[in-house]
Every structure is written in C-alpha cells, then in structure tokens.
C-alpha cells in the first residue's frame, strides 16, 4: 500500500505542478457561482431553495464537464509513459503493475476530489458569505460526491483507452470520441429511438434499463430525483422510484463502470511488453 501511496502522491504533485488542479478549481468554482447567481431567475413562483436549483443546473453542466476533465487527466497516463520510456524504468523498481495502476488512479481521483470540492464547495462558501441560503446542502453534497464518482468512471475509461492505443495522438483523439459517445451520442440515440418508437415496442422498463446502464444518465437521475426539493423543481418527481431506481442501485452502476475498466486495464497491462 505504501508503494501505491508514493505513486499517487507523485501524480498529485504533477497535478499541482502543472497548474492542472488550480485551473480546474477555478473553472468549476466560477461555473458554480455563475449558476447559483442565475439559478434563482427561472424558478419564478415555484418554491425551491437556492441550492436545489443550483444542483439542477450544475449537475446538468457537470455531466459534460467532469467526464471531459477526467479524460484529459487520464488519456495520457499510460501511453505517455510508454512513449517517453519512463514506464520501463519504473517497472524495474519493486512495484507491481497492479500498484502502478492503482497509484495513478488514486492520485488522479485525489486531483479530481480537490478540484470538485474546492471548486464547487468553495463556490457555496462564497455564496453563503454573500448572504445565500444553505438549505438543500444535502443535495449539493450528493452532487459533489456523485461528480467525483462520475469523474472516476472516466478516469478508469481513460486508462483503458491509454493502455490499448499505440500512440499519444491516437489516445487524445479516442478520448474525444469516447466523450462524445458516452456523454452526447448515447442519449441522442436513446431519445431518438424513443421518439421514433412512439411508445410502441420500447417498454418503459427497457428504456429505464438503457438509461441505467449509462454512467452519465445514472448520474443525472441520481442528482435530479434523489431529493424531493430538486425533483419537484426539475419536474421529474417520482420518475426514478417508479422505475425502481434507488440511489444505491444508481451509484452501484457507476461503481461498476469504475471497476470493470480498471480491471480490464490491468489485464491488458499485465500482458504488455515494454
């Protein structure tokens, strides 16, 4: 475990050194402040506390942004070290390949943790100091934690990509492709099918399952339907519970999306010759 920690701290220091973390905190914090300032405008007469509204808009934006940030962190993690030759030297040290992957993962998750909690959390602190209400903070906290989980999914997916491709340029291109498929295209196709089908063949159950298996949709449902205040304001009250989706099922699906790519990465990496 000590080895994993040493490797993780190295990644964390890299993140601080190249101002990655700073930039991400700034970006996420600014967005959170902007959205919570704007957030109260569209509510009109609907009674919802400020933070609930912020969760709606912020989670809708995070679902695009967090995967992008996570992929930018991870796509280079393995192929970059193969290409530069640093991996070869590292593996002659008393570390297993398993420790290398877990160390990197822990380090990158820590970077994301700092970025999300300092960015989103810091924004809330500033808003409270400016006289905003803290009501609905539970939903906000869940949003931060599930954002970290969503980010971890895309870190793991980024590693799998990184261990499979031969060149860094390919990894960068594929990362954008991966993002498009998971964040944009999957939902587009799903909703397109739903529209064309007009409720004929696609049962509600099947549709719910198709949404559930996508990590980004799981994240959306988790944030928009878990708390009454949020789901009322978002206009989707009761949808998740009707489809039988509990928060533990939703986060379980996302956790699977972390574990499976990580194990697959390790599987490929173990067989790789340097």
């Amino acid at each position, binding site marked *: 475990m000590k*080895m994993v920690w*040493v490797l993780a701290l*190295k990644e964390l*220091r*890299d993140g601080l*050194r*190249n101002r990655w973390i700073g930039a991400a905190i700034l970006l996420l914090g600014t967005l959170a402040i902007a959205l919570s300032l704007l957030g109260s405008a569209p509510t009109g007469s609907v009674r919802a506390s400020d933070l609930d509204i912020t969760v709606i808009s912020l989670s809708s934006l995070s679902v695009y942004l967090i995967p992008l940030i996570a992929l930018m962190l991870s796509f280079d993690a393995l192929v970059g070290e193969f290409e*530069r*030759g*640093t991996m*070869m*030297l*590292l*593996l*002659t*040290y*008393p*570390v*297993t390949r398993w420790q290398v992957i877990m160390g990197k993962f822990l380090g990158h998750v820590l970077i994301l943790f700092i970025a999300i909690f300092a960015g989103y959390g810091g924004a809330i602190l500033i808003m409270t100091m400016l006289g905003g209400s803290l009501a609905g903070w539970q939903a906000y906290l869940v949003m931060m934690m599930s954002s970290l989980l969503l980010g971890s999914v895309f870190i793991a997916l980024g590693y799998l990509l990184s261990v499979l491709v031969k060149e860094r340029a390919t990894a960068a291109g594929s990362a954008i492709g991966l993002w498009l498929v998971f964040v944009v295209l999957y939902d587009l196709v799903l909703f397109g099918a739903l529209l064309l089908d007009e409720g004929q063949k696609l049962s509600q159950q099947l549709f719910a399952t198709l949404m559930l298996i996508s990590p980004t949709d799981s994240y959306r449902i988790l944030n928009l339907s878990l708390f009454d205040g949020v789901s009322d304001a978002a206009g989707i009250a009761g949808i998740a519970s009707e489809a039988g989706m509990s928060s533990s099922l939703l986060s379980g699906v996302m956790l699977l999306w972390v574990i499976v790519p990580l194990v697959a990465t390790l599987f490929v990496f173990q067989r790789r*010759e*340097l």
Partner: protein
Amino acid sequence: MSKPAIETNVIALQEVNKTYANVKVLRDINFNVQSGECIVLVGHNGAGKTSLMKLMLGLTKPTSGDVQVLGKNPAFSASVAQGLALGYLPESVAFYEAMTGREVLSFYAQLKGAGKAECEKLLDLVGLGDAAKRRVGTYSKGMRQRLGLAQAMLGNPQLLFLDEPTTGLDPILRQHFYELIDELQKDGATSIISSHSLHEVEGRASRFIILKSGKMVAMGSLDELYQQATLPVKLKVSVSEGQAARVAERLDMHLNSGVNIMHVNNKSFHLECFKDEKMPLIRHISNLGEDVQDMQIMPPRLDELYSHFMSEERS
C-alpha cells in the same frame, strides 16, 4: 569448499529465444552469470543487447526458453524485486520532465526504500548537487545520464544492468563512473554492462558476450576469446642500428610459412604468427644473439577480437 554452482548463479538463461513481430531478436541464448561477475555485452546496434537486458529485467518474456534471475523467473515476480536491490540504467534514459532532479531521485528512492541522505549523497557524487532543484526538463543529455546513474545506484544494488552507461559523459565523469562501479563490485555486486566503447571495458569485464543479429557468437574472458579466435599475434623486435634487414633475413631461414615478417626498417621489424607458432618463434629470436635488443608481444586487442568474431560468422 566451493558452493554448488546453482547457488552462485545470479542469472541463468537457457535456450532463450525472443521474437518481436516475426523478427527473431534473440536466438538460442545460453549463459550463466556468477555472483560478483562483470559481464560486458558487445555487439552492433540491433544485435539484441537491450532485448537481452529487458528479458533479464522481466520487462519482456522469452518466446521460448527459460530465464532465471536469482532463482526466479523475473517476468512473474514483482519486477525481480523480492527484497533485492536492482539497478537499471536504460539506454537514453527518460524522466518525469516536470519534476526537479531531487524530486525524481527521492521518488525513486521511496520506491526502493532508500533514505533522503542517500539521495543527497548520490546527487553530489554524480555532480548534480547544484542542479538538483532545477526541473529535469532543463537538463542536458549528460546531466540526464548522470541522474540515471544516480537512480541506478540507489539502495546499494547487488545486481546492476547498465545499457550504454557512458554515452554523453565527459572523460572525467567516465572515469568517475567506473570508480563507482568498482566500489559496488568490491561489495560483491554483479553487473551486466552493454557498451560500444570497447577500450573502456576491456580491462574490467570478467567475461564478454559478443552478440550478432541476436546470436551469441562468442563468450569468455579476454584470454578465452583469444584462445577461441584464430587471430595472429604480433611481435615487434628491436635490433641494433642498421641491422634490421640482416636479422630479419637470418630469422626468415628458420621460419615456417605461417610467420610473416613485416615493416622492416632500420632498427626494428614486426612479425605476425598464429598461436601455435608463437613459442618456437620466440625461441628462434632469442637465439639470434646480441643484435636483438628488445621484443614486444602484442596479443589481439578486444576490438580486433570483436571484429574477428563479427566477420567470422558471415554465413
């Protein structure tokens, strides 16, 4: 009493073959390395030196055959490292560019369980003490190589793999580097060095392995290589002023056809003969009397042996 051979074998390779994408990079490699030996791998670029090192380091697996390092298969172990200090300096070493020299070294030290004090000592030793707080990205090639050496030396390794260790080092640093290796060797470290500069390694290797297109064409100490090679020995005979031609002529009458007399000038001439004719020839020379003032025997040097083995197996 000598220990059983199996215990002193640090490295053992048997019938090792390695194929990359249908190219045979190593063929039928067999050798054992005993504890404390210094093995030098020589061969052209692409002869398989680096591939051989990677196999021993467990970075790659043999296509067929068996590799054992300290009695274990390196490919299945934690990078060969069950409590073993191992040092590796890759050819054209690469580091994490954004980290400073000191950070890089202490990162590696933590992985090897070495202390901060040792890092500072090594940084000073390789002459990077002043540059330690600069980013590795700003380092010159020589400085990277020195940092590479420092990381290889971390934790007093008992087994060293050095791939072209002195490229990019100035002559003084080269000297210094070999002194460091000698230090480790005195403590019983085993080292595997690949090198292009034959004269540098000529005096320090316990054995040489000559590789050509992935095959071992020769293995042994300088003496053994000389025995294996059918290379002529050169002798230089110095005689009294103006007597060279006459003495050479007298000698020529007694000689077999296998001996060549060359470069006859005023006071010296050269002779070339094969091993089995050397001693009779020397006896003849000493019988030539007072005219002969001096004689030098020049056995083949490593570079001559090397080019001999390289051209021999042209089949």
